[in-house]
């Protein structure tokens, strides 16, 4: 589109028009505004990696990345990030176990089944879900879901702790549904109708068309939606800070409390760690790890979306 405009502008006059300095200045100003986003990324990288590298002068990088005990405030301190990473993985994967079926099913319904009017009322509901502040979700996990898990569900002697990973993951799963659903729905809606009509003409039912034609055709967009969902789960802070507890815990038992990477950053950054110490640098090191993990996922997701946009 921009291209056609450039061509149109090029042909607008036969004489070479004089240079308009006002126009040039404005264009420069607009470019600067666009470059603010690039500067933000550069700023994030500097803010994260300079202190993180400072930390690795005190703590060998291999100890950091493979150590299984995270206790920067203990004496002697221990800087193994593995418990934070496993907690992040456990909670994110459990959240995705909820968000994947619900998100994809919602997307299929909206894209393939809902009449335009139903769609018009159902879609905003998902948007409302996306607009609820995460601190509210955290409150709901701690005060509503956790008591149900502890008092109503039959766990026998193995009662969930007050702060537990399961409750945070359940609520986080619902929180991610709109992210997954809206991207997946975009991908499915982008599948050309000719494919659907061809399958219908061969006698396929709506269910068969949805599962065997639309789903595979939209697969790259659906994978992009899931990857972005995981990225959001990994980066989510408030729900885990409120409901999952602040105890670094190398465990795969979702009934126990545990601390994620984001949970540690939130706890340490809100004043528990004195400024200018090695411990303070740990915030940035954990942040750098978190940033790299989400960066990889985001780039994968962006690439996949670009691919299906090119195909259709």
């Amino acid at each position: 589109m921009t291209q056609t405009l450039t061509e149109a502008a090029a042909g607008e006059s036969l004489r070479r028009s004089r240079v308009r300095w006002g126009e040039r200045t404005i264009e420069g100003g607009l470019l600067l505004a666009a470059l603010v986003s690039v500067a933000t990324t550069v700023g994030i990288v500097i803010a994260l990696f300079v202190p993180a590298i400072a930390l690795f002068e005190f703590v060998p990088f291999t100890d950091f990345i493979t150590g299984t005990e995270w206790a920067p405030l203990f004496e002697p301190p221990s800087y193994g990030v593995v418990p934070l990473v496993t907690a992040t993985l456990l909670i994110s994967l459990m959240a995705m176990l909820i968000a994947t079926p619900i998100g994809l099913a919602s997307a299929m319904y909206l894209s393939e089944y809902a009449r335009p009017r139903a769609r018009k009322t159902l879609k905003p509901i998902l948007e409302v879900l996306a607009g609820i502040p995460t601190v509210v979700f955290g409150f709901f996990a701690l005060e509503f879901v956790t008591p149900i898990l502890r008092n109503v569900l039959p766990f026998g002697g193995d009662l969930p702790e007050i702060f537990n990973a399961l409750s945070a993951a359940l609520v986080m799963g619902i929180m991610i549904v709109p992210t997954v659903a809206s991207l997946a729905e975009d991908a499915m809606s982008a599948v050309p109708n000719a494919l659907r009509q061809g399958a219908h003409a061969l006698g396929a039912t709506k269910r068969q068309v949805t599962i065997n034609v639309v789903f595979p055709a939209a697969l790259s967009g659906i994978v992009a939606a899931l990857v972005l969902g995981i990225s959001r789960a990994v980066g989510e802070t408030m729900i885990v800070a409120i409901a999952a507890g602040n105890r670094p815990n190398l465990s795969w038992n979702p009934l126990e409390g545990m601390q994620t990477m984001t949970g540690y950053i939130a706890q340490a950054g809100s004043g528990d760690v004195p400024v200018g110490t090695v411990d303070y640098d740990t915030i940035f090191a954990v942040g750098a790890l978190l940033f790299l993990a989400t960066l990889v996922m985001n780039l994968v997701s962006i690439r996949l979306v670009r691919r299906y946009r090119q195909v259709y």
Partner: protein
Amino acid sequence: MALLAPPTNDTEIAARLSAGARERPLDRVFRYALLASLLIALAFILILLAFVLVKGWDRLDARLWQLQPSARFAEKSGAQSAILGTLWVMAGTAALAMPLGIAAAIYLEEYGNAKSRLFTIIEVNVQNLAAVPSIIYGILGLGLIARALGLGFTVATASITLALLILPVVIIASREAIRSVPQEIRFGSLALGATRWQTTWRQVLPAAIPGMATGSILALSRAIGEAAPLLLLGAVSFIRFNPDSFLSDYTTLPIQIYNWIRDPREEFQVLGAATIVVLLVLLLAMNSVAILIRNRFQKRW
């Protein structure tokens, strides 16, 4: 049966074709399963809202905005400093993010060459930033804005950080609004001798403003609900006074809520729930304005 108007689109043709056919049992189960998934999300929202409202009901009174927070007595505690802090931070964030985001969107849609390397870098960069965890922005604010720039833990630091956080969302929404203005408008303006900026300023922008306003308000409401980055920017400390400039200490509603619900005492949980209602009402009001603008002013081409 009354005469049907001719079908106007593919969906309608498909609907009419399948209307006569009998739905197979498995197909029906599948359809209901999909619908049920969608309804789970709806049920979740209803339960959440009902729970918060019931829990906070007894403390939903004028004390919430008349009193300052107290760590000792829940009954003498309010959220005035947090409400005003949220308004201050929101004003700063809007003042920064909206002009910057709209200018960047204009560059990307009207000026940039989509095939150039710089354009791709900016575009992918914006998409990535939109998905960077919010707490990372908190680290950016802590390391560069609060410390390196020396702004400290003030309203200004919070505003700048949140503005950078929502900038990608504002850019993406504004680009969509600009893209929905038809090319013919631009060609017409250029053909009459207007320069590119005159075309943008007098034709494209007025037509795109409703869409940009809606997108910006929605982005802003995301910033208002955001707590994670502000945890790192000093908002957690107990603030019993209202901010009076961009260089004041501050707290905001989500942070005040976080402080209260971390307190195990039941009366502070109730207070937290009541404050959540205030926050949700504020968000609801902003979203309604956004939807109103979209419905009232958006042009259909």
